[in-house]
């Protein structure tokens, strides 16, 4: 696929359409086979914090097909909604870079404020919300004009970002204030702040919007918050035989589309917890690479990819069988991962 794309004229629209037609054709002939065959060839983009690169993984072959040079210290990573660009926060360069997917290189920088780490796009793709750890702000960037248009004051060291399924509320977690901040996106005003355990790193909504999950890295827990009442209703703790409690440091949270199963990356515990998302009971711990932080599903939810910062690899979890089926070597200190949907 990569070869086909690079062979095409340098026209995004045409290439995009051809790409879609190509995929539609493939779908037509492979629909039946697909159910039993490997997942479709989506592309996973992995930020390598120490290498200053982004590795591109073909999720069909489960191998790295390309490595893209980016700025200093790439961490947060997400695709634009049209999937023409991959955005990556390069903290030490104080910007968010736009990787042109077809060119496979950085073509533009966004104004992010100092040391950006995590960010999220609005569902319509028009706004980018960035956690600026150094000045206790969430910055809003207009994607059309590529200008910073607003800042919202939050707690000390903002990090995790999530948007409610209805697109109306932005959640930001602040690591030293230990809160999940609820920001109304229409007014860009803070509406509530909920205290959680130490160093909240990541936030994720259930797809039915009934629950917000927030991981506390130092506290070692995941808080379940009722987004309507702005109150913690349950707390998930973890325990792995033979492992000290301090080593269990939850970060990334990914919940399946049917809201039945949640996966929580446990950092230096080198494990991903599998949780019954309804009862909040931990069902299983999957051994992955070292210091696992962030994860992404393939769009068909066949695979969950995890970034393992210390072992420099990505673990592939088969979601149906709950087995780790492969490790893929990437750059140094993989941090974040995002996967194409088309």
């Amino acid at each position: 696929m990569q070869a086909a794309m690079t062979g095409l004229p340098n026209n995004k629209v045409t290439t995009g359409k051809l790409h879609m037609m190509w995929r539609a054709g493939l779908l037509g002939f492979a629909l039946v086979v697909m159910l039993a065959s490997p997942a479709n060839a989506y592309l996973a983009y992995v930020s390598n914090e120490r290498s200053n690169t982004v590795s591109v993984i073909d999720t069909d072959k489960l191998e790295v097909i390309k490595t893209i040079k980016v700025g200093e210290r790439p961490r947060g990573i997400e695709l634009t909604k049209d999937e023409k660009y991959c955005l990556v926060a390069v903290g030490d360069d104080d910007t968010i870079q736009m990787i042109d997917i077809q060119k496979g290189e950085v073509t533009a920088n966004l104004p992010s404020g100092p040391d950006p780490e995590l960010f999220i796009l609005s569902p319509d793709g028009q706004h980018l919300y960035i956690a600026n750890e150094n000045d206790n702000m969430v910055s809003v960037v207009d994607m059309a004009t590529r200008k910073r248009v607003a800042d919202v004051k939050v707690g000390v060291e903002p990090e995790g970002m999530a948007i409610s399924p209805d697109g109306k509320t932005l959640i930001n977690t602040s690591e030293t204030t230990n809160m999940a901040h609820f920001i109304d996106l229409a007014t860009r005003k803070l509406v509530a702040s909920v205290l959680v355990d130490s160093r909240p790193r990541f936030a994720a909504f259930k797809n039915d919007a009934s629950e917000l999950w927030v991981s506390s890295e130092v506290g070692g827990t995941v808080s379940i918050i009722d987004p309507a009442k702005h109150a913690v209703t349950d707390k998930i703790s973890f325990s792995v035989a033979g492992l000290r409690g301090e080593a269990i440091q939850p970060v990334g949270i990914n919940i399946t589309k049917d809201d039945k199963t949640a996966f929580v990356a446990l950092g230096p515990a080198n494990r991903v917890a599998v949780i019954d998302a309804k009862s909040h009971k931990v069902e299983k711990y999957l051994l992955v690479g070292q210091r696992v932080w962030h994860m992404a599903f393939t769009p068909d939810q066949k695979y969950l990819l995890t970034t393992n910062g210390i072992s420099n690899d990505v673990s592939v979890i088969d979601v149906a069988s709950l087995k780790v089926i492969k490790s893929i070597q990437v750059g140094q200190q993989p941090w974040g991962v995002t996967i194409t949907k088309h």
Partner: protein
Amino acid sequence: MNLARNGSLIGKSDRKRGGDADRDAVLIRFPACTLAILLGLGAAAFAAEPLDVKIGYLHRPQHQETISLVQMPPPNDGLAGAQMAADDNDTTGRFLNQRYSLIDVHLKAGDDPAAAVKQLASQGVSLVVADLPADQLLKAADAGKPHGMLFFNAAARDDRLRQEDCRANVIHTAPSRAMLADGLAQYLVWKKWMRWLLVVGSHERDKLYAAALRRSAKRFGAKIVQERVFEDTGGARRTDSGIAQIQQQIPVFTQEAPSYDVLVAADESEVFANYLPYRTWDARPVAGSAGLVPTSWDPSNSLWGATQMQSRFTALFKRQMTDIDMQAWTAVRMIGEAVSRKNTTDEKTIFAFLKSPELALGAFKGQKLTLRDWDLQLRQPILLTDGRMVVSVSPQPGFLHQFSELDTLGYDRPETKCKLQ
């Protein structure tokens, strides 16, 4: 940045944070009902007046001069860390209707800390961060006891404060000499640098550090092949052409030693240790008070999100963050953590929370920090730094413990002589 003088209030007013108008604006954004629910704090949250948290800061007259010009203690050493934590607590407090102020009492030489404590008590202060030498700290703590005051030792390393002279109203955020020595020893042993030449200064605290290093060597199987004393004969630490003499003196001082792997120096008084690296008779690394130094914090530390901490500190104070700054920051953040969880300034409730397993302090150390309930020492990893980089962090791999690997550093529960009262 204005520095407060004796007993004056510092905190929000002289900061670039935006002042009261800004805070009010934030508070008004909360509908009252939402506030009550989200805080889950009951009727107290409706009070219009914010919860005022006053924290005293006892500041020693002067910090130790150093041999190296780049390590000279800044005048606000420690206090700056406390101020940043008060600032951090205040940012959190904006969402919880809590307000923090720091009352700095800068003691002059010969001042009685007990009098300063009484003055703080009369101002309604019951939580005090102390940057005081051991004897002064004990005087302060004992003077505060009848007033129910809780102290945070942010500077004194003395093991006796955690052992026979421990106090039930003193929490230690500063690591003890035993913890520092154990952190260093574990690394030297991991490196298989088992044979130490120990050089000890002639002052009391140098001897105390040497005692801690001897204990660590025994504990982890290192051998002290010989001890030498470096006598402080007085004189200036730095002179215009001093280097010429030092280059002659140090090789002579270190020659004819039995075979050794590493020279370990105990020189808290800053008389000689920083003269040792690169000048020893034998080509050997130096550790302890110079070379590879065990510490709670270093401006070069960028592990576990520490870069953010360093850049916030540098932006506020235009200088680098020291270990004393970090220990004071940790103390004030501990208070903030307790107040935000319990919504009270009652020192008994705060103390109970801090001692309980509920405390899970995030302090850029890669794991939660908790208190040892037998001597009120904060468990913490020890950084090993050469002044430019963090070389390693102890506990080292393989030093195991049945409860917490952090308890391989310092006096463990079965060894304690502390009877908290």
